[in-house]
């Protein structure tokens, strides 16, 4: 378990990065989503895995075996923020496809191109 989660995080980062670099806008969004998941898992791994839930019963004073609650709160916030942005990105994809009729990111060069010189 201690080795499996970091390896999984690495695989997700690699998959996310590879998807991010694809030509299709849909795959780029998928890459963003997968990288978001990978980052959340990374936060989880960083907080020292434990099998005990982050709860203190009556009379218990041992803090070393329970899970750390702060990263769990961070991950929840990150998941929710990521979800909101994914929703926006998917609607943006739909509108961009409707207006440009193409899913190919290499066709989106109008905003990067140099206008004609006046001389």
């Amino acid at each position, binding site marked *: 378990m201690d080795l499996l989660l970091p390896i999984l995080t690495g695989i997700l980062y690699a998959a996310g990065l590879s998807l991010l670099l694809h030509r299709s806008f849909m795959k780029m969004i998928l890459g963003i989503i997968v990288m978001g998941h990978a980052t959340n898992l990374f936060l989880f791994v960083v907080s020292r895995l434990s099998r005990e839930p982050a709860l203190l019963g009556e009379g218990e004073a041992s803090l070393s075996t329970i899970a750390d609650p702060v990263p769990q709160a*961070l991950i929840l916030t990150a998941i929710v923020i990521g979800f909101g942005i994914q929703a*926006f990105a998917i609607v943006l994809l739909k509108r961009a496809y409707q207006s440009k009729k193409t899913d190919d990111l290499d066709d989106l060069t109008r905003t990067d191109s140099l206008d004609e010189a006046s001389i």
Partner: protein
Amino acid sequence: MVNLLLPLLTPLFTAIFCILFWQKVKVQKVVFFIGATLSLYFAGRLLWYVSQHGILSIQIGNWAAPFGITLVADLLSAGIIVMASLTTLLVACFAQQQLDSLRMRFGFFTILLFLLFGVTGALLAGDIFNLYVWFEIIMVSTFVLLTLGGTKDQLEGAIKYVGINFLASSILLAGIGTVYGIAGTLNMADLALKIPEIEHSALVNLTAVFFIVGFGIKAAVFPLYFWLPASYPTPPVAITSMVGGLLTKIGVYVLIRFFTLIFTNDIGFTHEILIVMAGFTMVVGGLGAFAQNDFHKILSLSIVSQIGYMILGLGLFTSMALAGSIFFMVHNILVKTNLFLISGIVHSSNNSFKLKELGGVYKRLPIVALCFLISAFALTGLPPLTGFWGKFLLATAGFETEAYIITFIAIGTGLFTLLYMTKIWNEVFWKKDPAIETTKEQFPSQFHFIKDNFFLLLPVAVGSVLILYIGIFPEIFINYALNASEQLMNKDLYINAVLNR
């Protein structure tokens, strides 16, 4: 305590009131201007309070630091909050006349206030994760502003902006995770105490690099700035003025905060990277701006070039260099917003942004040409305008620390700035209007243009007068910058104010 919360909560409540009057634009305008003026007043009061009583901090929910969420205001934060409120007011004054009614009806004022709310929160955050959440608020508000109206170019620019900024957020989150893993806390004052005690300096440097890349993307430094000229020129001018003048400077603010408070133990590594990035940013931004042939794109790449100066001040890491950076931030927010608004007025009168199709504005609207000259000379660094004082502070700091190469690059970039500003002046204001031969239309006299477009010219006039004032009587502002940088270099002031020792 109230002083700290008022500049934060006023935009939020005004935004909520604006939502209550959804689709009633006239009422929204009144509510907005009352709220924005109140925000500016409260921000000014916060700045006055901090300059009298030192760093102000409150703990949300009364949970003691470092366990709870802290809001901290020092001189730098308070000053930038004042500039942000001023920018919002000026841009909204321009937008309510020029922006088309459809955009205004569908929530422009609300989102502008949410953007101001996010910016104020990011400037007041004392906890890294809270800072991340405020940056997400800024990011989503900017998404909405960039795509409001949904033209083809806007959607294309938004795709590029969304993609790279979401990547930046993921990198930031990874950095936050690493910081928590090695230090066990996310409160900035507590981190300032704990990070120097960590033996694995390689891990600390890794975290520093995560933050340089993540916030570097937000601040548009080289080589992370390519989203800026692709996405900023696409929305209407009012929106570009707001985001272009303000958001990258918030990224620079966060870099200054992190690299003067937290990551100061390996200056040879982290601040060297910052100096090299600054040098490249200045040169590449300047060359890029000179190569463009569109008014907006030149100004967008000019943003990138000026960011290089601010990062340079941070990289040199002396009191005078940071003062130069801070003065530059204040001056640049004002001048950039002014320049973008002037480009909006030119668009109103000539209906184009392309340099090929523009011309003759000096003959038609000499007042606008005068405002452009003041702003452009301020940007270039001609005495006695504001840019001169900023560059003077930075160059003095550079010579004091014997960083000769980068100081010469900084002074040389002033020449690049002059080059592209002269290009704009020649193409837009000086040369004959190419449309005169084709349309043969009579342009209304300047007096009639001003009468019809009064609210377009008012913020530009206010901005130009402020630039002249700050340039000719810079003493208060330079003292402010020096005091703010003293506060930054002296970490204990911040740590004691937050942790109540």
